[in-house]
């Protein structure tokens, strides 16, 4: 049975509100949506959250002690939500920010709205000093094997079993890493010809990867298996992926279907295309 191939994913160009763009994914669970955006000058992430059944304009914006840089090609902010925690790879450029300490886990309850003492300056310092979740062994492995970064990309996904998956690529190779119970394990290097970013996705216990060109793969430690009949008609730039975790569905919305005066729930009911269910 063939599934609709209308899977399109936007990373940077999707604009929910003026100046706010969603990075990689929108998550909906327990009637609340979550997405992140990146400041267009100071690299810091904002966690946007609001009620699934309320207009998108009615949202809270929380300052996140981390973000991503603007180096070309862009590696979108790698983040995910699991339970009450936000996982992220803090790859913003800052002279005190150690890439080896970039993997963070921060309780969402600790995040505060922008304003008052929560400033760009304070959050940049916090991004460098916040304790890491795990030593960035995946990155260490990459730079140990080569001092040249080319076609270097990564993303993370929190898994149903409580582990954290990270896929990282450099110079034509890809490797899957898993952080579980306080230690890393990894598969072998897999050939990977991608020259642009990709996105990871957990669904029903399986790890998937969406290539920039729009192909869907199942990811295992030593294999990348294309999912049949799941090819996007365009690259990851035409819309937004929405993970409806309460329903175990993943859907897609096009940019031009968005209306901030309408709730995300209504938008999805009326306009979204199902990717996984």
């Amino acid at each position: 049975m063939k599934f609709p191939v209308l899977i399109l994913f936007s990373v940077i160009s999707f604009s929910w509100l003026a100046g706010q763009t969603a990075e990689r994914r929108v998550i909906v669970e327990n009637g609340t949506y979550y997405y992140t955006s990146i400041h267009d000058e100071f690299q810091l992430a904002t966690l946007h959250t609001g009620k699934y059944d309320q207009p998108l304009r009615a949202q809270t914006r929380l300052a996140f002690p981390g973000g991503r840089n603007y180096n070309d090609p862009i590696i979108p902010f790698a983040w995910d939500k699991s339970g009450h925690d936000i996982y992220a790879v803090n790859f913003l450029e800052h002279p005190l920010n150690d890439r080896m300490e970039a993997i963070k886990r921060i309780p969402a309850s600790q995040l505060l709205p922008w304003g008052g003492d929560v400033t760009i300056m304070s959050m940049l310092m916090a991004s460098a000093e916040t304790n890491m979740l795990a030593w960035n062994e995946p990155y260490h492995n990459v730079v140990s094997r080569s001092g040249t970064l080319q076609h270097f990309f990564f993303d993370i996904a929190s898994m149903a079993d409580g582990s954290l998956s990270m896929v990282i690529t450099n110079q034509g190779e890809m490797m899957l890493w898993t952080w579980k119970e306080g230690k890393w394990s990894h598969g072998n290097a897999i050939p990977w010809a991608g020259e642009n970013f990709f996105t990871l996705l957990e669904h029903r216990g399986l790890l998937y990867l969406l290539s920039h060109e729009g192909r869907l793969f199942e990811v295992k430690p030593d294999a990348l298996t294309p999912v049949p009949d799941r090819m996007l008609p365009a690259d990851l730039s035409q819309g937004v992926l929405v993970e409806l975790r309460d329903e175990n569905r993943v859907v897609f919305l096009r940019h031009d279907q968005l209306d901030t005066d309408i709730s995300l729930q209504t938008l999805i009911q009326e306009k979204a295309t199902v990717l996984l269910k």
Partner: protein
Amino acid sequence: MSLLPLSLAAQDFDYTNVSVYSVSFSGPDLNIRKDDGSGSYTAPQWVAGAADQSPVAYASGDAPRAAAVLQITCANVPDSLWVRGTGPDSIEFSAKKVPVSTSATTTHNINYPATDGSTAFTADVVRFYNPFVITWEFSHDGTKWFGAGTTENTLYVTRGTPMSETTNFKWWHTVFDLSCRNAEYETTDTGIISHVWNEFLDHVVLNHAGDSLHYYKIMNSPNVTLSSLLKYRDAECYTFAQLFLAAIKIQGVVRSNNYVYITPTSTVFACGYNVNRFLVKNWNFGTPSASGTCADFPYRNTYTTLIPPPYTSYGFLTSDVTDQSGIPGSCTSNPSSYFNNHQITYLDGVYYDPCYGVTFPSVSDIPSMAFDGWSFRYTSSGTTNAFFTNNISYTYLSATVTTW
């Protein structure tokens, strides 16, 4: 107002009534973006009475193209006049007979059409005209000429077509200026690199207006892109490396693997912690207070906020090690100097550090030449304990290379 043919003897203007009003340069001119990010400079690039005139840029081998609007103020004007312009280096804008426009007032425009200069800019040579002066003249008969004023524009000529813009590399005004100003008359890649580098040697890097570009004017500058350096004139190391590379790319010089990120290796530990920070000279090592905690890193500073407002100094609560004036940065005598990483450039076998105006033969030479110590830290109950050593041989730097 009537337009009278020249044959009538009733013209009543004197020659001071004609003056140049505006000049527009056009293709194949290069787009120049304003440093403040508000857009690009547009025609007309010269306007009489304007406080600031706009810059112009061409690639060598191309000829400038200029149009001009002259104005004549007179009750009775001829139906046409001859107009020509004379630029530097034998560049002439040929004489053309152009109509005098009708007008509801006594001021009439004379529109000299876009005309290629008689001579192209010498191929493969950088030029910096400051200014590019055109002397405009008019004539009734194409024989006897009268002055109509001069126009002046800063005009840049790049050696080759600039490299294509990217997300972070764009054709900003200061990039043209810094590059052409320093590399004028250069023709080779090495000559261009060498002369552009001159801008960074004296720790005074200036934008097109002569304003200072600061390396950490405030110690916690949040600016990490070339666009933000040019806009705010205060930024971090990444931006000066980008500026140097941009000033080369604008001349069409192509180099890959030129952007080098250096950081302490992640394989060396002290007392259970990765040694992941370093001190750029100068720092004074006082009496160590942590010998019993970590013998190899016996100096300890503590802080809750490393650089608190107003971001002019480190906010150590206790300090065995204190910051001193040392290696100055661009337009900043004592910039931030406690880091995890730094960004430099690599061109033709040389490591250039545009922030400090210094070069290194290799990454391994940097610690002994520029550092006073290494550090690790941990945070507990909101207080960070930073431990230091002044043993420069304790660890070393690793480098990752990309192409900017």
